[in-house]
């Protein structure tokens, strides 16, 4: 069974524990500028939205890479950047429709979410359940279930 990150922005408080967990897991420091997941604030609407790679089944970044540095992790389905192969050409950052592959000036290579090998640190650190790691085929079904619960199955006579 494949799992994927599931994000519910309505539960996000903007604490950035996910960004810290990501940077710590991947870089060994608390440095949100190195995080692969980002929380965006829309102050006027009062919304906070976490965003990261959704691991497209057919990945533009992977297809665009001229040196095959982005490969599929068979265990998790994650599209993983192999740092020793990446040449930092940034073509993947252009190909990705969502902007979730990013160039890192320090290393001269790109980085993206790799699902931490199947135990995503962001989901583990999220205190509100805004980021969860769920069965991929369950994606969206919680929303469907919520709407089903609201369906009026006993309409009153007109």
């Amino acid at each position, binding site marked *: 069974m494949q799992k994927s990150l599931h994000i519910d922005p309505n539960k996000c408080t*903007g604490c950035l524990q996910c960004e810290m967990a990501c940077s710590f897991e991947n870089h060994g420091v*608390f440095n949100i500028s190195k995080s692969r997941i980002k929380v965006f604030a829309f102050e*006027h609407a009062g919304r906070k939205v976490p965003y990261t790679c959704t691991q497209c089944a057919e990945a533009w970044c992977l297809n665009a890479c001229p040196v095959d540095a982005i490969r599929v992790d068979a265990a998790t389905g994650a599209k993983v950047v192999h740092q020793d192969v990446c040449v930092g050409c940034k073509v993947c950052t252009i190909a990705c429709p969502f902007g979730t592959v990013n160039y890192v000036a320090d290393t001269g290579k790109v980085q993206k979410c790799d699902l931490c090998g199947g135990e995503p640190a962001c989901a583990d650190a999220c205190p509100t359940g805004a980021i969860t790691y769920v069965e991929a085929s369950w994606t969206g079904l919680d929303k469907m279930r919520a709407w089903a619960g609201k369906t009026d199955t006993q309409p009153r006579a007109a």
Partner: protein
Amino acid sequence: MGWTKKILRVDLSTGSIKTEPLNMEWAKDYLGQRGLATKYFVEEVDPKVEPLSPENKLIMTTGPLTGTAASTGGRYSVVTKGALTNAIACSNSGGYFGAELKFAGWDMIIFEGKAPKPVYLSIEDDKVELRDAAHLWGKTVFQTEEIIKSSHQDPQTRVCSIGRAGENGVMYACIVNDLHRAAGRSGVGTVMGSKNLKAVAVRGTKGAGQIKDPKAFMAAAKAAKKVLADNPVTGQGLPKYGTQVLMNVINEMGAMPTRNHRDVQFEDARKISGEAMHEKRPTDGKTHLVTNAACFGCTIACGRISKIDETHFSVVNKPQYWGASGGLEYEAAWALGSANGVGDLEALQYVNVLCNEDGMDPISFGATVAAAMELYDLGILTKDKIGLEAPFGSAEALVKLAEMTAVGEGFGKELGTGSARMCAKYGKPELSMGVKSQEFPAYDSRGIQGMGLTYATSNRGACHLRSYTVASEVLGIPVKTDPLVTEGKADLVKAFQDATAVFDSSGTCVFTTFAWTLADLQPQLAAACEGEWTMESLATLGERVWNMERLFNNAAGFTAKDDDLPPRLKTEPAKTGPAKGLVSGIDKMRPEYYQVRGWTPEGVPTPDTLKRLGL
């Protein structure tokens, strides 16, 4: 390690910017943030200094856990001599600014002198420079943040700034960061304004990587987060209702100061409560509250984000106030609401937003309006003098006075001096409800006796955040004590004061202490910071910080006479509720407290006490 071990020293008079190593000898004794910055301050500044003179300094400081994954690890503090109080001031704020300062590689910034013209400090990691702020002067906090972020072409830049209140010398001006978090009390924004310093913009990409034992730290932080999540206050009450969870509770127990402390229960408390913020409005069918919000690293998320009813008189035809904004928190809801007898939730939020955008402490502002309304009620202030009718309960008056105060228009200029100076001017100093010229927060000392002692002895003037005995006397944390008696309160207040000083010096938020004790903080500090951090050493450190602040105030001219409450709380009994018939027992508690502290009957730490604390 926790610290970056580097500080910035900015001489605004000459424009010189220097880098210094952090004094690690002091860090061992004072930890960081409140403790360590106050140590720097008292070593460098004459206690008699005039707060608004160039000789006063202003320190922005992080703690060792700021910017780490510790829950609530995003705090920063501003230490200076308070404009409002003439006492040591330390105002603490959340948001994201503190963590960003740490990420840029700095433990603290010491501002000295006075800039010849308005400037702001720009920090991009090691690149630090003073820039012209002529285009920002006269702008609100919201505008200032927007202009700086757009000119730096970096939305990740974090900004703290003063609004027009700080520019115009409102004595309780604050420093606002991330739109609606504030280093709020004692007039720290007034001091910043007096130095012609409009803002600090910071972008850090280095991170907080200097953790002594990262593995142990992550384990300790995770365990402590679980304690917060499992606790009913930090895990449920605060996320759902924010600090406003208290409005109905405190009102029920007859400790809700109302109409300048004439009453102790507010008939409209429910209308301005956390529960009311969740109810759908009849006008537009929406709730006042939009969502809760967290500061950096916080797994509690008590912050409130609300939208004002677009049809409300205060904002009709003002679409700039229709978006989501911070508030209401309990203290603001009380000070703008109950203190003035105003039960109009939408009006309170509008005034709260004005306080945020112009950088005014809503507690001191609201309480000063309450004093003005009493002077009006007594006929001492008139419609002619104020420029409008200002009876208790008037939302219209509250709104208009808020619009006048930050910009110093008409009577707003006098409101901007704070209740102590204003009441003294009109021959009624006893009507100022505060201590050391700083207005009380939202708990009546007759119904919660420990808070009376808390206020009277707080080193920064009346304040609930120096020893929040409400936790014990109302909520039973860590043990339930009777709010109506004075017995045992001296020990309770001392214990809370010392422990709070440790939390304030660490980079974490004092709200964690609804669930955490020092035993939850200690493993995080011990894993993050070099040196030995034991329960014993931390407890002593808290007491050391408290006594250091006290020594500064004593040298500044404060005496036991200043550790007192206004006569109303000692002579006019509570009229209703569980505390009916009671006055504050401050005169009984004070000498007990001095004894527990190891101070003389005059409130001076004895040589033995100083020696024991290494002072």
